């Protein structure tokens, strides 16, 4: 939760694309940790598999989003250089 809040704060407060992206990943990390914490079902029982599946999917999505954002950022930089 703290990671999530921290992520939102830095997402909103930073201008630079790279910082925003890192903040976004921190946010995502926060959410994923919540899911993993939810999976814990006591010391003896095996953890709930569903949240793990969700987190894996979520990480894939986050990685591709970051990639696209970086690509667009590069384009924006190029375009700005041309102007």
């Amino acid at each position, binding site marked *: 939760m703290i990671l999530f809040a921290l992520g939102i704060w830095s997402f909103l407060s930073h201008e630079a*694309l790279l910082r925003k*992206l890192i903040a*976004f990943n921190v946010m995502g990390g926060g959410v994923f940790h919540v899911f993993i914490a939810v999976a814990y079902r006591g010391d003896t029982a095996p953890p709930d598999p*569903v949240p793990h599946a969700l987190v894996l*999917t*979520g990480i894939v999505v986050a990685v591709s989003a970051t990639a696209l954002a970086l690509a667009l*950022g590069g*384009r924006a930089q190029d375009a700005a250089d041309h102007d």
Partner: protein
Amino acid sequence: MTDLLPLAVAVPLLAALLVTALPRQAALLGVLGAAATTLAAGAVLTAVWLNGALTADLGGWGVPLGISMRANGFAAALLAMTALVALATSVYATGYFADSPKAVHFWPLWLLLWASLNALLLAADLFNLFVTLELLGLCAAALGALTGSADAVKANLRYLLVGLLGSTTYLMGVALLYSAYGALDIALLAEHIAAGGDENNAVDAAALTLMTVGLALKAALFPLHFWLPPAHANAPAPVSAALSALVVKGAVYIIVILWLELFASVATASAAMVLGLLGAAGVVWGSWRALRAARLKLMAAYSTVAQIGYLFMFLPLIAATPPGPARDNLFAALVLMALSHGFAKAGFFLAAGLVQQQAGHDRIDDLGGTAQQMPATTFTIGLCGSALIGLPPSGSFIGKWLMMQGAIEAGQWWWIVVLLIGTLLAAAYTFRVLSRAFGLEPTPLRFVTDARSEIPALMLALTAVGVLGLAAGPLWTLLGLGAGGAA
């Protein structure tokens, strides 16, 4: 029968792969793929019409591990609207992107966008909604930046980041819900929440707030709309059409599900009122900015902010109306407004794109000759404009009529004031454009100048104005609502 649901997602996905593999034939394959997807959506619509809501489990895993899909009347209606708008846009795109190197990038992304939107509408659990929403956002941002101009890339980068922020916030809400109930399936979760009693109220409220705020960001609800106008106005015309008419509706669809289905038992009237007031602010502000906009596409984009506002104004009215025909009418009116806006705004953007290509710019004040030289396109803008204003015989006229009726019955007369202001401003901005078509330019030779791109836009306009306005009755049946009667 239940195989239909995955089909509606698989067909555009397959088509996206094909156009990637065979870029030389992209336009042809793209249109064929669009036609096939439309058929699949039509099949889903028919099945829902005949049998009511459908569900499907992929790979036989079942809840909770597998991916399950469902289609109710609401989803089927939006699915069908998406199909028609996307089909028209695809045909239009063959003309718009003819001889353009961008076509190679457009077609795969476009079909992928369509696939993810269909998957979103058919998703049966909250996590799938997240994944599809994220995919939708990625495709949309990539498409929006297709022109490659600095403005477009910058606006769409912002759009992407805002979208990521929104969907992550939404996901946090999902995580909270899962921690409280251990379920993600919407129907299942709705039962849990209704049965949950008081001890989970705090979690419910926190989750609903997080999810709504996240989605409101993606749906461009005032004051979280700031990213929309530049992103939509700078994209290529077919993309703007899809972004404004379809993609935004994806987020609105989830919000409506959350408020009217998932959290129906706990969402309070005062919370709904907040959304409604924000919607009203969006109507007024969006319409005002649309009136002041210097460019045609920017005007259309601001008008989207206003039109989305109307949809949110239904929420407090529905909350204040007891279950029964009157409430059914309000829900149907909400869907009808969403559909009309989808068709009308797509048609508007497509027509605006033609004007822009012809004139080389889309500054409203200098459009005179161009608008007059393209009667079919100007006609399209006029028809779509009258649907945006809410004039008869458009679907939004019925929507607004029912909204006013609901507002009077619920004693919430202030929505009528908003409706009045919004309608007059919409009339002002629409006719600001249309008045340019009456000048002293020479007479155009024929009505249609470029059939391939003008006809699809005109068809969308006619759907919004004629079909939805004069034959909206079946929508009630599709949504599974009783005949509204003399409510």
